[in-house]
């Protein structure tokens, strides 16, 4: 293998009716997914929606019950080894040998991809430098902090310069500074390699920088688009209300603002008009009936809530 960067793929992932059944449970249900090469793609959905099972099928670790998936130009069912050659995987749980050092882990991983020791050495240095781990290369992985271990896991996942990188909840269980650090690394990696990245997460704010996001629910694709487009389609403002008699409030406002979304003690309305002056008077109008009223810009969390509300 030489050291040139992979040429961008036209289509990184294309699935047709991808299905996985575990006995009675339909984990993934006829998923149709299309990811263009070089994209930063977010696969979003609640726990148990089928995100991880989808990643496992796309990475050839779980065989689909029905349907097909072409990843980096190869069929996951017919040519799993060719697929695995082109992809990098970072799981929720670390894929590292805790007893070996950082350098030994990367050497092991690199040799598994049939890389020459000199190439592994060179890339390890580059990547560890980028991820701020170079001074720790001879420390056993077991002694690293959670954030460093996750960073190393990503280094391990890209040591063979994959065309597509799968990141399954890469920041799960990390504190905010470490999550930010991991995102900076991923952005730098994307900038320097142009690799396609498929991300699953349920920290939706992390998906804001994606080129495309797809929401899945019960193993089905329910919404897809650019974060901006999806958020924009929701409206210009979201009105959040709290009050003692929420039912009455909702009933009073629904004729004006359309159907409300109830989330615990809060009711939310969408407002499509950029002009928020009508909203400014709302507080005065409702008076003591509301205990809190907030007008804000919608975000991906709202898309998620509305998408789920529409289907349940």
């Amino acid at each position: 293998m030489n050291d040139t960067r992979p040429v961008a793929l036209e289509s990184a992932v294309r699935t047709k009716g991808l299905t996985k059944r575990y006995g009675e449970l339909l984990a993934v249900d006829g998923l149709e997914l299309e990811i263009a090469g070089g994209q930063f793609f977010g696969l979003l959905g609640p726990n148990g929606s089928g995100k991880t099972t989808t990643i496992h099928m796309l990475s050839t670790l779980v065989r689909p019950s029905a349907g097909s998936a072409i990843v980096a130009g190869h069929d996951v069912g017919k040519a799993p080894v060719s697929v695995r050659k082109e992809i990098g995987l970072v799981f929720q749980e670390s894929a590292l040998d805790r007893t070996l050092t950082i350098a030994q882990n990367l050497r092991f991983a690199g040799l598994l991809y049939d890389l020459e020791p000199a190439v592994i050495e060179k890339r390890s240095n580059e990547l560890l430098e980028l991820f701020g781990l170079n001074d720790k290369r001879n420390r056993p992985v077991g002694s690293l902090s959670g954030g460093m271990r996750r960073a190393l896991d990503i280094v391990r996942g890209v040591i063979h310069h994959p065309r597509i990188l799968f990141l399954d909840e890469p920041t799960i269980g990390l504190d905010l500074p470490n999550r930010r650090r991991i995102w900076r690394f991923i952005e730098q990696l994307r900038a320097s390699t142009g690799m396609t990245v498929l991300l699953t997460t349920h920290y939706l704010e992390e998906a804001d920088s994606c080129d495309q996001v797809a929401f899945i629910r019960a193993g089905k694709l329910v919404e897809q688009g650019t974060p901006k487009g999806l958020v924009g389609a929701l409206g210009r403002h979201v009105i959040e209300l709290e009050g003692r008699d929420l039912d009455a409030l909702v009933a009073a406002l629904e004729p004006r603002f359309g159907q409300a979304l109830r989330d615990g003690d809060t009711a939310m309305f969408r407002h499509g008009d950029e002009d928020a002056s009508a909203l400014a008077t709302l507080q005065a109008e409702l008076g003591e009936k509301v205990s809190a009223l907030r007008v804000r810009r919608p975000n991906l969390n709202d898309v998620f809530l509305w998408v789920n509300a529409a289907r349940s």
Partner: protein
Amino acid sequence: MIVRPIYAVLEREVVKMFRQRTRLVSAMVRPLIWLFVIGAGFGTVVGRARGVDYQQFLVPGVLGMTILFGAMLAALTMVYDKESGVMRMLIIAPFAHHWIIVAKTLAAALAGIVQAALLLVVLAVLGFLSWKMSYALLAAGILMTALSCAGIGILVAAFTRTLDNFAAIMNFVIFPVFFLSGALYPIENLPVALKAVAMLNPFTYAVDLLKHALLGAQSTASGSELGVNVDFLVTAGFTLLAIALASWRFSREQAYEPLIHILTGKRG
């Protein structure tokens, strides 16, 4: 090419083996206890076995035992690996999954061979080795013993979920394999039923090969009971069969899907 990934697995095995020095030392001490305590003790009762001084008769047996424990325990660590990140690195690597079994078997055999080599040095220093032995046959014997012991271990590992019940594996696999072979006594004297079991035990043939190598030149009654060719054929055949069976088991979707879910902790 698959050579480099296999080399990676072998290298990791050696790195880990030399890190666990106490295990290495105990692997040297265990056979010496057998040799000096059992060998000397039973020697007074048994005297000679198949024309060979009993303590001397035990030398191939304890060498075999070292390889058995070394290779088999190394192969059994695959069960631990199943629950650790290492197996994830292996299953996502770009080669067919049966190569994981091949690599792990070879690595376990290597662990057995290294321990056998160390023990040979100790045995030579203690004067238990005759310089007239057949070196080529000894090397081949150690190799075949290591491979078949690794094969037994990989079979057990492929069909075992956890090593929680390690005592059961000790009782039902390692001890029977060791005791129901020709390692401690000639199998010709065993009761028919036990002899039949011993004849089905690949370790019997492995130890017999070691006897050919170590005792062959010493006396006319060589201590070995089977032909060299038969020994080679059975150990090689068993190793291939064990790898094939373990690979089949490992590659079946059921074998590694639960693993993925254990590691992710959910079916999200």
